[in-house]
């Protein structure tokens, strides 16, 4: 800010930098605006004042409500003037002030007069202003004029009306939709831009009607479209139609492909590019279809215009991700772009080359990149680093030169994000390429010797602790780690202590030396560092005896921590100090999610105590609280899982009921959340009659009715069942709501004395396999998978039959199993033919389960799946397979 002020002073000194708005001040200009009220208007003067006001607004000045109102009223006086220049400024001013609804009325009649003026410029501008400030009721009044304007012979007027229509469609769709005939006529207009605007509006009016859009595209692709912009629009609509019609790919003839291809020969570059881009983005595009598009993009690469080169290289870069071979033809042109003046273009060219390059060209490319890295911005460097990472995964044999490159750039100057990208890449290489491990770890060690980012240091130390002990000579890392204890801040020191301890726990030969080092840390100035050192010394047996650290201690110190911290926090808060120690196993492991139930919950106003069960309680501990308040459920033990609410009634019925399934080890409790939506009724003695004839392993043990259910105040009914212990028993239940109805006088709120017995059929309810699995995420699936070991692994293959898409098949299996997808693997990239999905969770009986699903497309639509399950108990692994086999 200070700098800015200084600069302003400079301007003032510098006579050449004279501005007509120098020293302009809001108050003074508002004073000047009084000339708008003069009986004899000076149009030129008024224009100047409006310009000044607009200048102030444009510089970010704001008017208070009163100031804006005053200006607005003053400006409306100017409609008296016949000066056209002034009128244009008045229009601008009204749009900038955007008057409130009650003020709009003042100008409406003036603007409507202008809308019907003989002067085209007035008509066009008045339409745009009026539509900008109008509301629904006013719109109905001017609708007639707007319809006329759409087919006006003056293109500016027609465009103004059409563009306003596009904006109004957002707020008043029902009115704009009535203009369809006029808009259709305008599509045939001879004026280029009118056609563009009409096409845009017509498509938006019809966008929900696939057939109509398809017809529109069919007729226009055969007809004449005049402006390049309209042609671009038509290309977009065409690709939308292709996308939605889908699935004709195997026949080889894609509808409308010929049209797109013909657009590649259009005279306007804008259209050529739009068509080429559309072709590259087609779903499941074949290389034959790609070829003509790639050819025109290749021509653009050597254009003199940076915009064209950028557009082309950016599109080719995207294509290279899915069809690298199709892009290789452009490699020569691409290589000349590495030295492009425009750094965005150069970066895109490099990363494209990295994607399309083959193993032999890697070394040459790396050399070129090294020269180029020093003079690009950090954000581009990150793009390059990411490209190199994927290159390394593609050509593992080349890891040496790529690792060298990464370690070199790691030593150079750079910001946090850049360094983090490099470190992440090295970590990935170490994980994926065993040969690269030792050199990679040493590079990281060197880096933390001189690293200014605490976050990166601690991350690397943590990683060293995991990977270091597994190397051939773990002792060589100790020096680097212990140096941290001397030289760094407390956070890094604490991290280093933990890493040392990990080495000590894993490598017995190192134990004595580690203990010596840890003991030195006991005198650290920071308490966290001291605490950690003490903890490790005591648990690892630092009293001198060199014993093998037992597994329980290792698990405790370094095992995965799979309890969500939020849950741990609430559990600790609820824990009251007593004889009984805090039991970490009692902490619920389910990740709290703001489920749909909350949004859908019946009864929007919470009414006292009755409300919480149907409102916020999507969280496990809220359920736990309700259930523990009912004595009959006290001996059921720990709640394993509560399902999301399942609606048992259609929306908008007399009584809204949904059910939550609470699963215990030996019991199942149904919690029916009921809402009475009829103001004239009071329900009493409400019970749910559950017929479990299709669930023969379940036996009803208890039912808790609801005494009364007044209008709009939700209540709960509980029904409990016994089931075989720990078993994933399945079943189907039919439900009937039974109650006594008493009529209520809505005016007095009093209920009649005598009620009538009645019942209400609810939908059926099922206990499915997914009810017995908990979604529990693991932070590092690979580690968890490896530490679980293949002892209880079960593998099998399944044919899933024809499916709509790979993504649909993946989702179905995830929902069936009710496990947590890890590392974003639930998302299937478009066009992929195979996909691997990782799931984790806990099965009833607190057994951890990890699942690896490999999907593949077999034929055009048939999906095949390989299911690998690991858990601590082979019966559980089998049970998971059974879920899939029976689902």
């Amino acid at each position, binding site marked *: 800010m200070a700098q800015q002020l200084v600069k302003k002073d400079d301007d003032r000194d510098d006579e050449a930098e004279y501005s007509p708005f120098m020293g302009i001040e809001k108050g003074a200009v508002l004073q000047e605006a009084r000339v708008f009220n003069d009986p004899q208007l000076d149009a030129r003067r008024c224009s100047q004042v409006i310009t000044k006001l607009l200048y102030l607004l444009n510089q970010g000045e704001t008017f208070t409500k009163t100031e804006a109102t005053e200006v607005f009223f003053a400006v409306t006086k100017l409609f008296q003037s016949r000066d056209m220049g002034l009128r244009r400024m008045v229009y601008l001013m009204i749009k900038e002030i955007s008057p409130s609804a009650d003020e709009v009325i003042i100008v409406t009649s003036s603007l409507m007069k202008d809308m019907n003026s003989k002067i085209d410029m007035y008509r066009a501008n008045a339409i745009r202003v009026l539509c900008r400030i109008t509301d629904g009721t006013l719109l109905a009044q001017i609708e007639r004029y707007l319809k006329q304007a759409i087919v006006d012979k003056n293109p500016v007027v027609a465009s103004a009306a059409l*563009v306003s229509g596009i904006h109004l469609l957002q707020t008043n769709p029902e009115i704009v939709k009535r203009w369809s005939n006029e808009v259709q006529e305008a599509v045939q207009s001879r004026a280029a831009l009118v056609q563009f605007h009409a096409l845009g509006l017509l498509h938006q009016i019809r966008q929900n009607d696939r057939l109509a859009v398809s017809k529109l595209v069919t007729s226009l692709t055969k007809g004449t479209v005049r402006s390049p*912009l309209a042609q671009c629009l038509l290309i977009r609509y065409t690709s939308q139609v292709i996308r939605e019609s889908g699935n004709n790919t195997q026949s080889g003839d894609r509808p409308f492909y010929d049209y797109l291809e013909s657009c590649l020969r259009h005279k306007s570059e804008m259209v050529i590019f739009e068509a080429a881009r559309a072709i590259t983005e087609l779903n499941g595009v074949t290389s034959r279809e790609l070829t003509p598009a790639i050819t025109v993009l290749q021509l653009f690469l050597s254009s003199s215009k940076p*915009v064209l080169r950028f557009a082309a290289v950016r599109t080719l870069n995207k294509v290279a991700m899915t069809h690298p071979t199709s892009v290789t033809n452009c490699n020569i042109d691409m290589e000349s772009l590495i030295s492009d003046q425009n750094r965005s273009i150069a970066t895109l060219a490099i990363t494209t080359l990295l994607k399309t390059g083959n193993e032999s060209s890697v070394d040459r490319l790396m050399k070129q990149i090294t020269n180029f890295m020093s003079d690009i911005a950090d954000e581009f460097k990150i793009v390059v680093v990411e490209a190199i990472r994927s290159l390394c995964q593609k050509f593992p044999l080349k890891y040496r030169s790529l690792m060298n490159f990464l370690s070199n750039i790691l030593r150079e100057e750079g910001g946090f994000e850049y360094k983090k990208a490099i470190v992440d890449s090295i970590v990935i290489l170490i994980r994926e390429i065993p040969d690269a491990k030792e050199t990679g770890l040493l590079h990281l060690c060197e880096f933390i010797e001189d690293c200014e980012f605490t976050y990166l240091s601690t991350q690397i130390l943590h990683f060293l602790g995991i990977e270091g002990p597994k190397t051939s000579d773990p002792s060589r890392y100790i020096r680097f780690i212990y140096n941290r204890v001397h030289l760094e801040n407390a956070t890094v020191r604490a991290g280093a202590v933990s890493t040392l301890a990990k080495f000590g726990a894993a490598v017995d030969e190192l134990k004595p030396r580690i203990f010596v080092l840890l003991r030195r840390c006991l005198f650290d100035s920071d308490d966290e560092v001291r605490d950690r050192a003490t903890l490790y010394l005591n648990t690892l047996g630092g009293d001198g005896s060199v014993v093998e650290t037992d597994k329980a201690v290792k698990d405790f110190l370094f095992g995965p921590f799979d309890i969500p911290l939020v849950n741990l926090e609430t559990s600790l808060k609820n824990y009251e100090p007593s004889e009984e120690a805090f039991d970490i196993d009692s902490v619920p492991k389910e990740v709290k999610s703001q489920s749909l139930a909350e949004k859908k919950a019946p009864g929007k106003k919470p009414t006292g105590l009755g409300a919480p069960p149907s409102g916020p309680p999507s969280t496990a501990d809220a359920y736990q609280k309700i259930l523990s308040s009912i004595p009959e459920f006290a001996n059921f033990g720990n709640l394993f899982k509560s399902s999301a609410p399942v609606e048992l009634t259609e929306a908008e019925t007399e009584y809204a009921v949904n059910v939550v399934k609470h699963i215990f080890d030996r019991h199942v409790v149904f919690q029916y959340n009921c809402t009475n939506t009829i103001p004239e009724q009071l329900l009493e003695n409400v019970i749910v009659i559950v017929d479990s004839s299709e669930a023969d392993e379940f036996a009803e043990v208890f039912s808790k009715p609801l005494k009364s259910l007044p209008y709009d105040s939700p209540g709960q009914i509980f029904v409990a069942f016994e089931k075989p212990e720990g078993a994933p028993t399945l079943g189907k239940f039919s439900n009937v709501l039974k109650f006594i109805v008493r009529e209520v006088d809505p005016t007095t709120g009093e209920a009649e004395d005598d009620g009538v017995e009645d019942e209400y059929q609810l939908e059926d309810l099922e206990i499915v396999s997914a009810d017995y699995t908990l979604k529990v995420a693991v932070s590092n699936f690979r580690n968890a998978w490896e530490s679980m070991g293949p002892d209880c692994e079960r593998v099998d293959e399944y044919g899933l039959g024809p499916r709509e898409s790979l993504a649909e098949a993946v989702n179905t299996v995830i929902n069936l199993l009710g496990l947590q997808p890890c590392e974003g693997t639930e998302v299937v990239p478009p066009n992929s033919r195979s996909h691997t999905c990782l799931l984790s969770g806990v099965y009833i009986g607190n057994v951890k389960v990890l699942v690896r699903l490999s999907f593949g497309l077999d034929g055009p639509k048939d999906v095949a799946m390989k299911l690998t399950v690991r858990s601590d108990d082979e019966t559980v692994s089998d049970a998971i397979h059974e879920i899939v086999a029976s689902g």
Partner: protein
Amino acid sequence: MASNGLCPSIKNILLLDSEGKRVAVKYYSDDWPTNSSKVAFEKFVFSKTVKTNARTEAEITLLENNIIVYKFVQDLHFFVTGGDDENELILASVLQGFFDAVTLLLRNNVDKSEALENLDLILLCLDEIVDGGIILETNGPLIAEKVTSHNMDADAPLSEQTLTQAWATARDTFTRTLLT
């Protein structure tokens, strides 16, 4: 204007001076809700582009998921911003239209002081190019004609305008001598 469907849409048009300060700007999207976020965006864009040479051909870059095409003349920097899935050439045509129109309106004297002297024309010009994010016109001469058409209807458009200019300059010089 978030939901213009598949219609090409413009997020903003900026005209900045050689220090990155506003001459005239117009925003059509809600991506920058406050004035300070707008100013921050302008500063950012300016600093990222100022060292490039965009004087002969329009240049282009991708910043924070926005495509920005730009062109510099004298001490004026022209920018047009669109989303990252927008057709770059459409944005470039808007930039060219704006640039051509301003060149015509300022009678080839395209610099900051001339632009500020004729700020009314620049603002009208912005108003005629894009309406609420939707492209109205990209042909420079047509845009310029629309901006000046009120003078076209008058008797002597060109001389009239020069007279206005002359008068304004005279007045400004006068006030300036008074102030100093």
